[in-house]
C-alpha cells in the first residue's frame, strides 16, 4: 500500500498534468495563428510547428493593402471603435441608472417589472430581428453613417445582463451610505453620482469591458445594419477578406484576423482580473 504522501504527490502531479495538457490544447490554435502570420503561404499548411522556417512579413504587408474599394483594415477597425466606444459609454450610464432605480427604490409594480427585465435575459435576439429591422428602417437608422441602429438602443439599457449585474453589486453597498448622503442634503440623483457610482466602480468597469468585447465581436448587428462598404467594421471586413482570399493567401487572412483582435487582446490582458471578477459576481449571488 502506498503512503498518503506518495498518493498526494501522484494526485498533484496528475492535476498539473491535466491542466497543462488541456491548457496547451486550448491555447495552441491561438499560438499557431500568430506563427502562421509570419509564414509563407506554402509553409502554413505544410507542418504543424510554431517556428517559421523562413519568417516573412508578407502576410502583414499584404494585410495593409486594400482589396480596392473604399475600405481597408485600419479604416474598418476605426469604424468598429467609432460605435463600440459610444455603445460602452451609453450602456454604462443607462444600466447604472436603471439598476439604481431597481436596487434602491420601492415603487408600484417593481417586482413585476424586475421579473420582466430578468426574463428578457432569456429572450433570443433572433425573435426580435425582423421587426427591429423594420423599426430602425422607419427611424432611418439602417445604414446610417453614425451607426444609429447599433448605438441608440444602448441609451435605453437594452442589454439587461448589465442591469442585473449592477443590481447584484448594489446589494453589497450599505444603504446607510445613501441615508447619510441624503441627510447631508444630496437629492437622489446626487446620491447616485457621489455615493453609489464610486462604490460601484469595479462593477461598472466590468460592464464596460464586457460590452467592449461583445460589441467588438458582434457580427450580426453590422451585417444587418451596415451596408455601405466604407462604413464596414472589422468584423465584416475580416469575413470579406476571407471570402476574397480563400485558398491562396492564408497568411494575409490570418494576419488581418489577428490584427483585428489586437485591441481586444490588449484590453483583456490589461484588465483580466476585472473580467473574471465581473463574470463571477454577476452570477454566483443570485
Amino acid at each position, binding site marked *: 500500500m502506498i503512503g498518503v504522501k506518495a498518493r498526494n504527490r501522484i494526485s498533484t502531479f496528475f492535476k498539473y498534468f491535466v491542466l497543462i495538457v488541456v491548457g496547451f490544447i486550448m491555447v495552441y490554435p491561438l499560438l499557431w495563428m500568430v506563427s502562421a502570420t509570419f509564414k509563407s503561404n506554402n509553409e502554413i499548411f505544410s507542418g504543424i510547428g510554431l517556428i517559421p522556417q523562413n519568417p516573412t512579413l508578407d502576410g502583414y504587408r499584404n494585410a495593409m493593402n486594400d482589396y480596392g474599394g473604399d475600405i481597408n483594415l485600419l479604416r474598418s477597425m476605426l469604424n468598429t471603435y467609432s460605435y463600440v466606444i459610444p455603445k460602452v459609454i451609453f450602456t454604462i450610464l443607462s444600466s447604472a441608472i436603471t439598476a439604481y432605480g431597481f436596487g434602491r427604490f420601492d415603487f408600484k409594480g417593481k417586482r413585476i417589472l424586475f421579473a420582466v427585465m430578468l426574463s428578457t435575459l432569456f429572450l433570443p435576439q433572433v425573435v426580435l430581428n425582423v421587426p427591429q429591422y423594420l423599426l430602425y428602417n422607419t427611424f432611418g437608422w439602417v445604414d446610417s453613417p453614425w451607426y444609429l441602429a447599433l448605438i441608440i438602443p444602448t441609451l435605453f439599457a*437594452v442589454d439587461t445582463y448589465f442591469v442585473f449585474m449592477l443590481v447584484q453589486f448594489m446589494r453589497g453597498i450599505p444603504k446607510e451610505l445613501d441615508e447619510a448622503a441624503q441627510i447631508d442634503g444630496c437629492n437622489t440623483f446626487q446620491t447616485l453620482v457621489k455615493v453609489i457610482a464610486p462604490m460601484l466602480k469595479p462593477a461598472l468597469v466590468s460592464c464596460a469591458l464586457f460590452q467592449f468585447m461583445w460589441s467588438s465581436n458582434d457580427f450580426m448587428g453590422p451585417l444587418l445594419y451596415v451596408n455601405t462598404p466604407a462604413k464596414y467594421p472589422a468584423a465584416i471586413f475580416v469575413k470579406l477578406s476571407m471570402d476574397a482570399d480563400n485558398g491562396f493567401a492564408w497568411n494575409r487572412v490570418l494576419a488581418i484576423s489577428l490584427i483585428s483582435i489586437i485591441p481586444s487582446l490588449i484590453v483583456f490582458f490589461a484588465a483580466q482580473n476585472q473580467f473574471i471578477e465581473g463574470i463571477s459576481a454577476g452570477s454566483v449571488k443570485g
Partner: protein
Amino acid sequence: MTPSAPKGALKKRSGLSRFFRNNMGLVYILPWLIGFLIFKLYPFASSLVYSFSNFHLFKGITEWGVMNYVEAFTSKKITTALLTTIKYSIFTVPLKLVAALFIAYILNFKIKGVNFFRTAYYIPSILGGSVAIAVLWKALFRDEGLINGLLAMFGVQGPSWLSNPDYALFIICILRIWQFGSAMVIFLAALKGVPTELYEAATIDGAGKWRQFRSITLPMITPVVFYNLITQLVQAFQEFNGPYIITQGGPRNSTTLISLLVYNFGFKQNEFGMASALSWIMFIIVMVFTILAFVSQKYWVYYGDEEGK
C-alpha cells in the same frame, strides 16, 4: 412655479410631484422601460403577428394564416434545421459544462499559478465569438490544416472535416465547447464558496474525493450549474457566427442552424413573415427547454436557504 399659475395647475403639479417623490424609482428605470417597450416588447409582439402572414419586404402582406407554420413543419429543409439546432445544443451545452466544471474543480485545489491557468482557459471565451476566430477555425480544419497535420504525425489520414456532412457540425460544436472558460470561471467562484468545514467533516467520516464531490461539492453548486445551463442553452440555440462564417450552413445543409434560416428567409429573400414564424418556433423550443429546466430544478437544485429561491 410661476406666481401667475392658476390654482388648479398648481395643485395638479404638486400631485404629480408627490407621485414622483413616492415613485422616484420609476423615474430611474424609465430609460429601460421605454427601451423595453420600443425595442423589445413591440418587436416581440409584432414578429408573432407577422408570423401569421406572408409579409414580404417589397410586396407587403396579402395573406393571413398559419401557412408559414405548416410549411415549416412540412419542409424537409426546415425540419432538418430544427433537428440540427437541437442536436447542436444538446451536444455542446453538456460537454461545455462538464469541461468547465472539471477544470474548475482541479483549479480549486491549491494550484500554483492558478491565475495563469485561469487566463489561458478564459481567453477562448473572450475571443471565440469574433469573426477572426471563426476564420482561424476554418484554417485549422482545412484538409491540409493543423488538425490533419497533427493526425498525419500519427499516420492517420484526416478526413475533409468541413466538406463532409458527417463532421462539419461537429467542428462547429467544438468551436463552442472550446469556449468553456466563462462557465469555468463561474464554477470556480462557486467552488470557492463551498464551506471547507463540510469537506473536513466528510474526510473524518472517511469519504473519498469522488464521494465528497458527489455528495458535497455538486449539491452545493447546483444553483450555479443551473445558471450556467440556462444561459448556455439560450446562447447555443442562437448560434449564428460559427456556421455562417465557417461552413455557410453546408455541406448539404448539415450545419444549417435555425438562426441561419431566419437570416436567409428574412434578410436574403425578404420573406419577413416566414422568418418571423421560424424565429417563433425557435423561441418556443428555447422556452420549452428553459421551462423544463426550471421545473426540474426542484429535483436537483439545492438552495441553501429554506424558502428555495
